[in-house]
C-alpha cells in the first residue's frame, strides 16, 4: 500500500470533517471561513497556524477568484504542503550514517528503531543497533527482540550504566563490523527535566566525537525527534527544547494510524524548519513510510 493510500485511510475522519466544511451551497461566506479555521484547530495544528492558513487562503481566494469547493480544496492542500521542509537526503539510505532517536516517554522510539533496522537490513544495509536506553526496565530486552527479528546485532550494557558509553561501544562495534548504518535508541525523557536533557546532550556529544574517528572516515551523525501524532500543542515545546539542547536534524512521526490528524507535525515543521523523515501509519514494519508533504496535505484535505 502506498503512502497516500495508507494516509488516506488513517486520515479518513479528518477528511470527513473537512468534507462537511467544503460541502457548502456554492456560496463562500463568513461561516465557511470560520468553520474551516475551527476544523484546522481540531487537527492539532494550533490556533495560530490555523488562523494564518485560513487568512492566506482567504486572500488567495479573493485574488484568484476561487469559488468552488474543488478549487479551494486544492489551494488549501497546496498551502499546507508548502509549510513542510523537504529533506535534502534520506539519512537511512544515504550511508554511512549514524542516527540517534530522542523524544519523550512513550513516543515510540524503540519500536521505530526496530522497524527501521528491519527495513534497512532487508534492503541490504549493514545495520547495528545501540541500546542507550539504560533507564527503562526491559528497554534493552525489547530492542534485543527487534534485533533478533531483523537479524541485526544489538550493542548493549547492563541497565543503569552510562548511556554515552553504550554509544561509544556501538561505534566501536560498527568500526569492527564495517557497518553502514548505526541506529541508537535513547531513554525517553520529558524536555522539562534539565538534568536528563544534559545527559542526552552528553550522549550526542560523545557520539559525534567518536563518529569522527571511524576507520572508514567520519560518519555523519543525525539526531531525530520521535513524536506521537496524537500530541497536542505541547509537541511544539518538546521540539523547541530538544532542538535547543541537541540541535535536531529532523522528525519522525509515529502512530498516525489512529484518528489523530498529526497537525502538530505542521506546527513543528513550520516553526523549526525541520524535515519529516518517516511517518508511522500502522503496526507493520513497512507501515513506517517516507513522508511526502504533498500526499500528506492531499490526504488531510481529501483532494481526489
Amino acid at each position: 500500500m502506498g503512502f497516500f493510500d495508507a494516509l488516506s485511510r488513517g486520515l479518513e475522519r479528518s477528511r470527513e470533517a473537512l468534507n462537511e466544511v467544503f460541502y457548502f451551497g456554492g456560496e463562500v461566506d463568513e461561516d465557511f471561513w470560520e468553520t474551516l479555521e475551527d476544523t484546522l484547530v481540531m487537527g492539532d495544528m494550533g490556533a495560530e497556524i490555523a488562523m494564518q492558513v485560513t487568512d492566506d487562503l482567504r486572500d488567495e481566494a479573493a485574488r484568484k477568484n476561487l469559488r468552488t469547493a474543488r478549487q479551494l480544496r486544492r489551494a488549501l492542500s497546496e498551502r499546507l504542503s508548502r509549510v513542510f521542509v523537504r529533506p535534502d537526503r534520506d539519512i537511512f539510505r544515504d550511508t554511512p550514517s549514524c542516527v540517534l532517536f530522542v523524544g519523550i516517554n512513550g513516543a515510540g522510539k524503540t519500536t521505530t528503531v526496530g522497524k527501521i533496522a528491519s527495513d534497512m537490513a532487508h534492503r541490504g544495509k549493514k545495520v547495528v543497533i545501540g541500546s542507550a536506553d539504560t533507564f527503562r526496565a526491559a528497554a534493552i530486552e525489547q530492542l534485543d527482540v527487534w534485533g533478533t527479528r531483523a537479524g541485526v546485532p544489538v550493542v548493549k550494557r547492563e541497565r543503569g550504566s552510562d548511556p554515552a558509553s553504550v554509544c561509544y561501544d556501538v561505534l566501536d562495534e560498527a568500526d569492527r563490523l564495517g557497518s553502514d548504518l548505526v541506529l541508537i535508541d535513547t531513554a525517553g525523557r520529558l524536555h522539562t527535566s534539565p538534568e536528563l536533557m544534559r545527559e542526552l546532550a552528553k550522549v550526542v556529544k560523545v557520539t559525534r566525537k567518536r563518529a569522527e574517528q571511524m576507520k572508514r572516515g567520519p560518519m555523519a551523525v543525525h539526531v531525530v525527534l520521535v513524536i506521537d501524532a496524537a500530541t497536542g500543542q505541547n509537541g511544539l515545546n518538546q521540539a523547541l527544547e530538544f532542538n535547543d539542547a541537541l540541535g535536531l536534524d529532523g522528525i519522525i512521526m509515529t502512530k498516525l494510524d489512529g484518528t489523530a490528524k498529526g497537525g502538530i507535525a505542521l506546527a513543528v515543521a513550520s516553526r523549526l524548519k525541520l524535515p519529516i523523515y518517516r511517518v508511522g501509519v500502522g503496526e507493520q514494519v513497512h507501515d513506517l513510510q517516507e513522508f511526502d508533504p504533498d500526499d500528506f496535505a492531499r490526504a488531510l484535505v481529501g483532494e481526489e
Partner: protein
Amino acid sequence: MFNSLSDRLNDTFDRLRGKGKLTEADITSAMRDIRMALLEADVNYKVVKDFVAKTKERCLTAEVLESLSPAQNVVKIVLDELIELLGATESKLVLSSRIPNVIMLVGLQGSGKTTAAVKLAYMLKKQGKSPLLAACDVYRPAAADQLATLGGEIGVPVFRGDGKNPVEIARASIREAVDHMRDVVIVDTAGRLQIDEQMMQEAVDIKKAVKPDQVLMVVDAMTGQDIVNVVSTFAERTDFDGVIISKLDGDARGGGALSVRQVTGKPIKFVSMGEKPESLEVFNPERMAKRILGMGDVIGIIEKAQEMADAEQIEAAERMLREGFTMNDMLEQMRAVKKMGGMKGILGMLPGGQRALNQMGGNLDESVFERNEAMIMSMTKEEREKPSIINGQRRARIARGSGTTPADVNALMKQWGEMNKMMGKMRSMTQQMACGGKKGKKGKKGKKMRMPGIPGMGGMNMNQLMGGANPFGGASGGSEMDMLRAMEQQMRNKR
C-alpha cells in the same frame, strides 16, 4: 504544568483589573482570550465552545457588571466553571469487599499504563494491601519483562502466565491471587488504538473474564484534540470508571484532561507526575483549577512538606530552639527544600509564584544550594556546630576547600547570622507563650520582615519576588512547616 494557560488568563484579567467597571465588550474580549488560551492548551474545541458560552453568560449578569470588583467576579466565575468542568468532587479509587479486588488498566500505546500499574501497586502496598500485577501485554516485545523488573523493585509479585493469551493470563492471575493471598489484582493490558476492532474486542473479553471492580483509562497529558475520539470509544467499549492522567510533570498544559471529564462524564482519579513509583497523586479538581488560574497550590506545598517532615525533623526543630541554629541545621533545611523540588518547584506552587518566576526569566539559580552545601561540607565539625568561631583565616580555608571565594563564605555566614537571630526571636516568643502569656498572634509582628528562612535564596527579597504582597506575614525562621502554615493562614485571610 498549565503555566502558560494561567499566564494568559492572568494577562487577560490584569487588563480587566485596570478598569473599575466592565462593559459587555470587555467581557467579550476577555472571553476571546480565554478561548484562545484554552485551545492552545489542547482543550477540545467543542468543550471550549461550551465553556466559553456558559462562562460568558454568567459574567454578563448585572450583578457582575455593576459590582464593585467585576474583575474578581469574572475570575471567580471562570474558576467555578473550570472546577465544575474538571469534576466538582475528588474521586478516589473505589474498592469493593470482594477478594481479590480487580483493577484493569487500558489505554493507547505509550500512554504510560505499565508505569501507572506499578505506581498503583506501590500505593496500594503502602496502604497495607498486598497487590498482584498481571502482565497481559503479550504484543510489545519485553513488556512483561518491564513489568517484572519494576514489580521486583517495589516488591510486588508479577504474574506472567503463559505469555500468549491475554484473556487467559488475566483469568489465571485471579486464581494466582487467591492461591497466594493477594487481595488486589492490577491487570496491565497492551496499548491499543481505539479504532483497532480486534484489540478493542480483546479488552472487552478481558473485562468479561475478570469482572474488574475498577477499569481505569490512562491518558497522556500531552494528547491533543483527538483525545475526544479516543476516550469516547474507550468509554463506549470498556465503560471505564475513571482516568489516570500521565506525564503531568512535563509542561503540557493538559487541556485534554479538561475534555475527558466533559466528554465522557468519567472522573479523573489520579495524576502521575514523575518516574518514581511514589509519584502518583490523587486528583483534586479544585486544586488543579486554581493552579490553572495561577492562584497557587498552597495546600499542595503543605502536604508535601508534611510528607517530608518526619519525627526526626520535628525533634531537630525543638533542638534548634533550645540550642540555636547550626550549620548542620542549615544543611538539613537546604536538603529538605531540594527534596521538595527546589526553590523553583516550591515557588511554582505558590500563588503568583509562577509569574514571579517568569518575570525573573523563568530561572532561579539553584546552584547556590550546591555551593552552600560544598562550603558547609568544607567546615570542621566544630565550625558547623558553632559557626561563630569562623574567623577570616577559617573563611579563606573554607573557600579554598569548597572551590568558592571568601565572599561566598561571607554571604553564607550572613545568612546563617540572620537565621540564628530569627531563631533567637522565636525562642523568646515561645518562651512567652509557655509562660502563660496570650497566644502569640501570627501576623502581628514585623510586617516588613525579610524572609531569611529559606537558605540558598541569598539576598533575594521575598517582597519583591511576590509582587509586593508579603505572603509570609509575621512568621519567621523556624522550620519550613511553620513558615508554610503561616503562608496558608495568610492566604485564607486574604480571601
